[in-house]
Every structure is written in C-alpha cells, then in structure tokens.
C-alpha cells in the first residue's frame, strides 16, 4: 500500500523531473524494498535509498520511511531522483569515465575498497554539486537530514562551504577544527570541470586518504562493513553490456597501458563476470572462470582499429540474399546495415545488419576467404602479457577483419617450432580462442616448421596468409622459398626495420601475391590492407 502511494508520487513528479533535466532517456523509476547489504552500518545510516540498474532507478521504500520524520516523502524522492538522473546526465556519464576515475583514485589509494569509496564519493559530490548549481533541487535538504559518519561529515562540511548552503554542520568545535584543513583543501578542487577530473580525483583522494584509513581501521576493529551509501552504490550494474564494452574500448585506447588495464579489470572482475565477461563461456555469457585481462586488453584495443580487407572472387553455389538480422558491431561492414530497422542510426545496440545466406545456383562472386595467421612469439618479440605488443595487436586486428566478414581464422603461434615452441589453432570463428593463442608467448629462438603450416594450407583453394614477425627467423630462406611456391594472398607484416626484413623484402619483391608492411607504431596498424595485391600492370 505504501509502495503504491510512493509510486503515485513518482508518477506525479516524474514528468516535471524529466523536464527539469532536459528529458533524459530514462524509464519511469519504480519503488521497492531493496535488500540491505549489511546490517552493521545501519546505526550510522538509513541504508540505501536508490538503486540504478541498467538505467532503471528504484527507490527504496524503507529508506523513504526512515526519512519520514525529517523530510516529506516527496522531497526525499525528488532529491534521490535528481541525484540518480545527474549520474546519467553529468557524472560519471559513462562507464569509461567511471573506470578512469577509479583508476586515478587507485594511483593514490592502492587499496581496492578505498579506491572505490573515493571514486563513489567523488562521483556523488560532482553529481550533487552540478544539480545544486544548475537545477532547483532538494539534495541539500537530504544532506542535512542524513546521518553521517566521519567521511560523510567532511563531505557535508565541504558541500556547506562550496554550495554556500547551511547543511547543519557546526563551523566550530573539535570535529570542525579537525576537518578544517581537509575541507580547505577539498574546496579548491574544480569539481565541475570535466577535463580536470583525473587530476581532481587524485587531489580529492590525497586529501581524504588519512580519514579513509581511519574509517577502515575503525571498521576492521568493529569487524563489520561500512554504512551503505544512501544515494546508491556505484557498481557496474548501472551500465548495460554495450556501455561496458564501449567503456572498456575507450579506456584501453586512452591508457594503452597493459598493466594499468589489468589492475582495473582484476579489481572489477566480479562485476565483469556478472556482466557476462569470462573467457570460457565466450564473450557472450560466461560463468565464473577468471577473466583473462590480457586477452580482453587486446580484444578491446583491436576493436578501435579496423583494417580494410579486399575481397576475392570465390566460387559459390549461388548469390547471397538477405536472410535475417543481427546486431551491428563496431567494425562490421556498413553496406550490410539495414537502415529501416536501424532507425537511420549507426549505433551499437540499435543498428542491425542483414545476415546473408547463399541461394541456389552456381557462379563466381566476391567473398572473403579464410585466413591463417602466423605470429612470431620468439624472444626478440615483446611479451604481449607484459607490455603492449604491436604484433599481437596487428594480428588481432587482422583476425577481427576476417571474422567480421564471416570467414574463419587459424593461428600458428611459433618461436622455435621444431623444438616444440608452437601453438596451433585450427580454423574457427571463436574470437576468444583465437586471441588466447595470439597472446601466448614462448620466447627463445625463431624457426618455422613447414610441416605444421602445410596441413593448414593444403586443400584450401582460397586462403589468405597473414604473417607477423620481426623476420629474425633462423630458417628465413625456407620460408621465402615456401612463399615462392604458393599463390595464396600473403600479407607479411614485420615489426621494425632490420637486415632480415630487408632480405625478405628483396626476395619476394617480384611476387605479386605478397604484400609487406612495417609496423613501428600502433598508428601504422590501420595502414595494413589485408590481401591487397600490388598493381603490376601499372602503365608507368
């Protein structure tokens, strides 16, 4: 009954709130009784007031009930919803920003729990400050009425100072004096300047650090957890799967640092697993196997680059015709987009592409052959699990290009192959398996074993070869003569310049089916055109 009346309040104020916040694309909030994560902190807080899962806000009726003596239901709901909406419209805005803020906080506060707490406090403070500055809101009243722990008291004291609104925090007294220096430092941070959030959160964390450690110690002594955040916890459930994907892609592109990415992924591994990340079950819906953060790093980084792929005339039974729809992903061919069912938008999650099927008949048409990727993981190459390897990134981009064109990919990862330094993956379209073999590192010498390669090539009339190496191969001459015999399209990518690479280039310069590219920087990767055949019939 009570929930119904609260829902009625929401329904009444929601149009006004939406208008106030310039019509955010959020569904009507609901009311429910949220499970309390811990009972220990209950004496010091009213519990969680708001939950946001994949954009659906849910008000905790128990929280509203507890606040009833101090604020009207309408005020509590409006303040919570203003806060929740501002998370969506201003801070953190997206998953990438959330991750970035967490990673910056962790540079100052290495403890995972405390770094999350810093990021949460910072995000909440920005959301509230933005709301107080730009909208008429009940948030200050909510702050005035909430029970406060030591950290919350400092934050409230800070809000009082930077908002210029009395929140009932005494300006004098022992605790005020103790907090004065912290508040003075915190008040200088430009919270509303988004471009400075990375440095701002570091300063925020530096200032709050002693207090957070004190709080943590106190909690450990009491043997319990901290109080719940009345304005809602900030975890990955806020974001949809697409947003997490996009966020990881943006984050990995910005940092380009494997170690930093690994650290963040390990910290969020539980939440990511819940979101469906976990290699064994595929990137779709995995069950609790450890997330291979290295593989995820290259996967997300490779999604930022797309390599053009020239199609070949393939013998087919018949022409392709549009058969069914599938979601469009970044890097998928645009020409297959169905503009009618995609509402004219090119956006993951909305856009759909036509899946084509072969009809009956016989003839030749353009298609994408399967690809065999040979990757060098000898000692002269960078270990992809220690730092960013352009070789793996390049191979990953190539694999993506073929997979997105519905072709299969096989991987031959080699160092000293005749001595067992090799990993072979047969033709597959399972992206995670391909990435796992690409990320494998052997070290040691470099030699190809043609006995391994030939079975992967034999019997396949149309097959592309993609080899990525620094060319410091012991049996380079064997490889050159092998390439001289086959007519498949070969894309050879070498990392850096060296005499071996020059030798290879010279030896195959007359072969029309071999293209050589050099990768010195990550920016060179998009310049690789897979399967491009040199124009020998140039009149000049």
């Amino acid at each position, binding site marked *: 009954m009570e929930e119904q009346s609260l829902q009625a309040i929401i329904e009444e104020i929601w149009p006004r709130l939406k*208008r106030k916040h310039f019509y955010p694309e959020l569904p009507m909030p609901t009311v429910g009784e949220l499970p309390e994560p811990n009972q220990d902190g209950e004496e010091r807080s009213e519990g969680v007031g708001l939950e946001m899962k994949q954009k659906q806000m849910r008000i905790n009726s128990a929280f509203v009930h507890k606040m009833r003596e101090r604020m009207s239901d309408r005020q509590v709901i409006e303040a919570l919803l203003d806060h929740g909406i501002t998370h969506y419209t201003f801070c953190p805005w997206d998953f990438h920003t959330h991750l970035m803020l967490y990673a910056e906080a962790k540079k100052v506060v290495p403890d995972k729990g405390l770094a999350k707490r810093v990021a949460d406090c910072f995000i909440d403070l920005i959301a509230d*400050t933005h709301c107080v*500055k730009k909208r008429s809101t009940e948030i200050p009243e909510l702050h005035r009425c909430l029970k406060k722990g030591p950290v919350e008291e400092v934050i409230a004291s800070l809000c009082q100072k*930077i908002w210029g609104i009395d929140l009932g925090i005494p300006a004098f007294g022992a605790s005020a004096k103790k907090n004065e220096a912290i508040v*003075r430092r915190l*008040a*200088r941070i430009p919270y509303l300047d988004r471009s400075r959030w990375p*440095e701002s959160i570091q300063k925020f964390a530096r200032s709050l650090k002693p207090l957070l450690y004190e709080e943590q110690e106190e909690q450990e002594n009491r043997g319990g957890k901290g109080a719940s955040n009345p304005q809602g916890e900030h975890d990955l459930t806020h974001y949809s799967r697409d947003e997490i994907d996009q966020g990881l892609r943006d984050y990995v592109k910005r940092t380009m640092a494997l170690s930093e990415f690994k650290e963040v992924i390990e910290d969020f591994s539980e939440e990511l697993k819940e979101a469906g990340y976990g290699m064994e079950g595929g990137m779709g819906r995995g069950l609790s196997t450890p997330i291979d953060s290295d593989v995820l790093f290259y996967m997300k980084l490779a999604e930022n680059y797309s390599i053009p792929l020239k199609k070949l005339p393939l013998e087919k039974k018949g022409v392709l015709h549009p058969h069914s729809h599938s979601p469009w992903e970044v890097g998928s061919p645009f020409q297959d987009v169905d503009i009618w069912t995609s509402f004219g938008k090119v956006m993951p999650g909305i856009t759909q592409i036509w899946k084509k099927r072969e009809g009956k008949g016989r003839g030749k048409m353009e298609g994408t052959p399967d690809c065999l990727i040979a990757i060098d993981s000898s000692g002269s190459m960078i270990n992809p699990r220690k730092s960013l390897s352009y070789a793996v990134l390049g191979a990953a981009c190539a694999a993506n290009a073929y997979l997105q064109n519905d072709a299969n990919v096989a991987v031959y990862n080699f160092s000293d192959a005749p001595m067992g330094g090799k990993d072979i993956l047969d033709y597959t379209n399972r992206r995670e398996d391909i990435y796992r073999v690409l990320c494998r590192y052997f070290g040691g010498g470099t030699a190809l074993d043609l006995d391994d390669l030939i079975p992967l090539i034999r019997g396949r009339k149309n097959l592309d070869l993609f080899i990525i190496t620094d060319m410091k191969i012991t049996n380079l001459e064997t490889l050159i003569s092998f390439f001289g015999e086959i007519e498949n399209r070969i894309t050879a990518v070498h990392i850096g310049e060296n005499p071996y690479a020059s030798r290879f280039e010279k030896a195959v310069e007359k072969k029309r089916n071999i293209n050589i590219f050099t990768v010195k920087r990550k920016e060179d990767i998009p310049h690789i055109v897979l399967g491009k055949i040199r124009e020998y019939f140039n009149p000049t």
Partner: protein
Amino acid sequence: MRNSTSERRKAEPAAERLNPKIRNPFEEFKTFTGEKRDLPLDRIVQSTEEVMDRIRKGYEKLLEEEAKELVWMVQYNTIIKAYEVAEKYIKEIDYSAEDIEDFCFALENTQRVPYLIPGPAGIYISALCNYAKEEEIVLKLSELKTEINLIGFRLPSGKRLAIEGDTGDFTGIGLEGGELVVEGNAKNWTGAGMRGGVIWVKKNIGLHTGEWMMGGEIRVGGRIRSLGNIVEGKVFERDKLVYPGKARIPNLYY
C-alpha cells in the same frame, strides 16, 4: 506602455506575430532557462586558478632569468641569486599554504608547468614557504613522484614547515632558525650551512649531513648515511647525540 509592447513583440517569434494560430513547437523550452546560480565553489576555484597562474608565471620568470639553457648548477652564488629573483616575484603574490602544495603537484604536470628543473623549483618553493602568511605550513607531498631538492632553504625563525613524504638533496640548507619536519627520508647534504633551528627527519638521511653547519640541530629518526664537516651544532641519530661526539666520523659512510 509603448516600450513594453515593443519589447514583447521582439520576444515573439515572427511566425507567431504573423499568425497567432501557429504555435511554436519549442514554446515549452522557454521555461528551460534553468536556475543556474553562482556557487562559492566558482569563486574559490577562480581565485585559486588566478593565484596558481601568478605563481607559475613567477617560476617561469625565474627559469628565464636563472636557467636560460635549462641547466642549473648548485653553487653558493647561484642559489643566493636564484633566491633573490624568486623573492622578487613572490612578494607580489597573495597565496596560502595550499597554493604551495598545488604548485608542487603542478610541477609534475607538464601541461601546466613546462619545465621542472629541480634546483630552481626547490628554491622557488622554499621562498614561497618563507613568505607565506601562515606560521605553520604542512605540505602533503607523499604522492609526489619527484623529491624536491633545496626545500626549507633559509626557513626563518618562527616558521614551521612539515613535509609529508620524502625530500631530495640539500634539504634545509641555510636554515635560519625555523623548524623543518620531514616525515619521510631526506637525501644528501641535508642541513648544510644551517645557522639555527631544527631539522627533524623521521626516517633516514643521506651523505654529508650537516656539512658546514653553523648552529641548530638535526634530529634523525632512522639512520644517517654520513656526516659532513660540521662547524657547530648538534646532530642526533635515534635520540643519540652523534655530533659533537666520537660516535661518528665526518665523511665516513655507514
């Protein structure tokens, strides 16, 4: 009356004026002016930025005058001259202890301060501390990646400077009666040429500690790597007097 009508007309869109039946589809958005208000935060941030700009410019001018080739040698004369130049610019700025701390972190951000040359930077920070309004300054520098050299140079009597974190070479040189507290480690030549006051180093200290020291005390919570040639003053290692005394020989490494 005429004025108000003409003003209203100006506000009305042309289409509505011509045909009152046409409704502006964006009419509803007219109320969306928002209640944007100025917060004290805006003022605080703006004044902080202005002060930081002036501090930064002062440092850049110091570099222009004293480290033209971006090379700076630590010599008695160069230190004195750089300090005089720093004093000249700092006297004109109204700043607080928090501004000094922010400047220390800004030095590591190449977008904000183009060059961090440890010598002049340390001299400049010392001058900032010496001319600050506050008698007690706490600089939370434990997250700073670079250790600042020459910090606490000429700290005058009546001032207390506490550094949370480690400091570099020449910490507290020429101390003039102030109290310098280093919560972490200090490197070589700490307290060289100090005339009075106290230097507290909570952890360890490097080589040539107290070289040409003329007075005052150096108290070290951890180990002293080596003492310099001390003229006068006292040096304590874990509360034990090591100078004057026979416990430590100058310039012998421990």
